């Protein structure tokens, strides 16, 4: 069974046109007290200087002896979901015992991976071998909690604390900002839906893999999320600039409720979206766009990809 002492870890970074932030991410990774054995950088067909930079970075990589670097360049932008799916598949193919995934605006603090692995071993001690993931505490760059990346705790979230593990909280869903996932989970539950493109891919995936055993947040493994403004999101905030993102969100979450839960959950979600947009006075054309995505969700039901099978 993989454990902190013996496991091989593949860090997976997905990037798209955010070179300056990516540089900071890579620097944070190089500064880890426990280095990953592999670093997989998924370039989501960036149109800025990312590709050139990565070629240079790979060539001059200072930790060549310790970390094997792999650049995966996607032919077109597959969104965060497609990037994570491709990166995790690559991590699996490299034989890693764990993949450690994060976005190109998440800066893991120096002990993030060390604490995650330690937390995983403790979580297994406390809950058994079926712990499907551990994730970091996500903070905003000013050190306050990241409003949009709070994992959802289970009803018995304090169970591990009662056992003396003060830094462990049991959770269901979390976002893909520093999540450590063991290999067997990918084999059994598959990869995130690449078809989601963006939004809700992380929520669906972490819910999928926590059907039997919850995930665990390791509160002293810290990652800083550099996301501009620190605020949560809901459908009252739909505007011309972000409607494309909310559209994916509505389709993906609607599909999840309908195809993985039941029709009542789907209808309830539609009602919540409707009420939020009304409350936020979202312009009618934008509302219609969102409604059409909710309808699209009815026929949108992608199949799970498994890393042990070639990509469909």
């Amino acid at each position, binding site marked *: *069974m993989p454990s902190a002492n013996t496991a091989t870890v593949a860090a997976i970074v997905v990037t798209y046109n955010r070179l300056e932030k990516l540089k900071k991410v890579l620097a944070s990774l190089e500064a880890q007290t426990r280095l990953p054995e592999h670093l997989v950088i998924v370039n989501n067909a960036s149109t800025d200087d990312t590709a050139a930079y990565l070629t240079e970075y790979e060539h001059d990589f200072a930790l060549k002896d310790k970390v094997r670097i792999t650049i995966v360049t996607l032919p077109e932008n597959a969104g965060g979901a497609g990037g994570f799916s491709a990166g995790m598949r690559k991590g699996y193919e490299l034989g890693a015992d764990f993949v450690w995934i994060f976005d190109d605006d998440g800066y893991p603090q120096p002990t993030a991976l060390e604490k995650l692995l330690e937390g995983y071993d403790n979580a*297994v*001690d406390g*809950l*058994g*071998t*079926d712990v499907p993931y551990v994730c970091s505490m996500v903070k905003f760059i000013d050190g306050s909690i990241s409003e949009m990346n709070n994992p959802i705790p289970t009803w018995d979230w304090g169970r591990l604390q009662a056992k003396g593990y003060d830094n462990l909280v049991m959770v269901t869903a979390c976002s893909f900002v520093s999540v450590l996932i063991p290999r*067997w989970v990918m*084999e*059994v*539950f*598959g990869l995130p839906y690449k078809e989601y493109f963006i939004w809700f891919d992380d929520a669906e995936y972490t819910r999928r893999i926590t*059907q*039997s*055993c919850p995930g665990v947040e390791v509160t002293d493994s810290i990652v800083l999320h550099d996301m501009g403004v620190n605020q949560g999101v809901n459908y009252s905030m739909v505007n011309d600039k972000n409607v494309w993102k909310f559209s994916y969100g509505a389709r993906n979450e609607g599909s999840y409720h309908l195809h993985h839960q039941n029709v009542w959950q789907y209808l309830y979600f539609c009602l919540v979206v409707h009420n939020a947009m009304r409350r936020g006075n979202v312009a009618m054309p934008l509302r219609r766009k969102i409604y059409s995505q909710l309808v699209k969700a009815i026929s949108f039901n992608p199949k*799970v990809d*498994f890393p*042990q*099978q070639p990509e469909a």
Partner: protein
Amino acid sequence: MASCTSPRVRTMKRMCRFFQLDQDACEFLDSLSRRQRSLVVAAVNYHSLIQPGRTLHYRIYMGEKWQYPRLTDTSTLNGSCTENDGREPIGEFDAASTVNAQSEFSPHYFAGDEQLLDHNIRYILLTPDDATDEDVWEHAPNASRAVKLYNELEYRWPVAFDRIREVQREERERKARGEVRLYEPFTVERANANEKNHHPWVEVKPGARVADAPKAVIVAMHWLQAGGAERWGMETIQLAKEAGFLPIVLTDSDGHQPWITDPICDGALVIPLTQPLQYRVGDAPILRALFEQFDIRGIMIHHCQWMYDNAWWVKKYFPDVKIVDSLHIVEYMFRGGFPRESLAHDEWIDLHHVISPQLEHWMEDIHHIPASKVIDAPLVGLTADSEHVSYAERRDPQVLNVAFVGRMSRQKRPDAFILVAKAMEQAAPGKYHFIMHGSGDMDTFTDGLIKRYGLEGVIERRPMSIPVSRTYADADVLLVSSVNEGITLTTIEAISAGIPVLSANVGSQDTLVPPQGLLRRMTSSFIHDAKRSLTHLNDNEADRRKLWEVEKNRLETFSHKQTANSLFRQLLNEWSK
């Protein structure tokens, strides 16, 4: 982890073990009976083998007499039969697996789509030493209307009812000649071709064998308790030891496993498997672990369905390992029972050992198994000394003693025997005495029928605790009333004890019993023929002797065939090279 110092556990160390215990655990194991301790060791060995290197916490519970031990199945992970059933453990301890695995053993298992949660705890259920199968049956009797009607008809009108059963038997015999559907292994390819599959399965290949792995054979049995196949199974454990192998004894059926304490099991690795096991498509973890830890040369199957179903896995990765199965009688229940399973799995079996000419004929002539793959080697010598035999004179010229030896079960048809006793008592009161030696699930039925016909003074019942030799010593003739047999061991035992045998003409009984000793099968005909024969034997001592002599000569001829013991000795010697 400190090692044990207690004397009993030191003895236990001579058993094959794949784990380490601390002192407290040893003391707890000391407090258990030998059988219970052996069951716990078996369970811990199993979990240590399939979870190499892990330290698991074991909670041991004492169940009721009507339960069966739970040692290796999925309830040992979720505690559904123990902790979640409101029981308190009688002891708990940690055991660290010392297995040096050569391939990956996943801690993650699924039952269908549902993950089997593994909290590092194994819940083991034991049963009291005096628990029996009857305790289990009586706790949950099959009380359906059909069963009640069947039992009532059987009890009220045994003779008439048997006419209906005879039709049923003939139909089953007809079906037994029908084509056998071959077993299709549930391979990774087959599982992955199913669209409803939860996730694609990956083939897990066994790793290389550890250095200095002991030479071993697997003896796969139904269970470790009384039965003809089991007696022969135990004999093969002994033969394996004599040939220098470490026997790995696996069983696949629920039972209290009383024979686990038999000295024959000393030095063997004994694991009574309780189902369903933790397993995954494309992998047989316990077999993979055993093949990594032992130099397994062969497998002997004695009525073990699990081993039949996993034979393909063995042959896939270890084609040189020989697989032999032993079959006793042509079966008609359960669509043909084990002989049919043997045919269905024939592709992976190297040799079918049969103990009666009838089975040989059934396999070769009816089901076209090549004669080179079927060998008839009788169990002569297993329970009786057939070489130095002499005729046993009548005990009492006034009374003829007639014996029944065997389980009280439908196959042995105790009701037919009782009806013969009734007919004889009516025809010649006080001239015949009957002994019924044995017990089984029809004990209550048997007692009820004896009482109903007022035969308490005519039929004497003897439990299995009395040596069977005493019954042969007290009897003048053995009456075999079974509806189906191969060649019964009791026939061989009786002839060896100097008494003749009258038998229903079933299976291969006609190999040893000449026509004058054979009785028609259906109950009414059986009673008619038995009455005529017993009267004749009672009146003609010379013919009783003649019958025995013919049977003895037939037994001698039969004994000149290669015996099962000699065949297996030869096989084991070949395997050990």
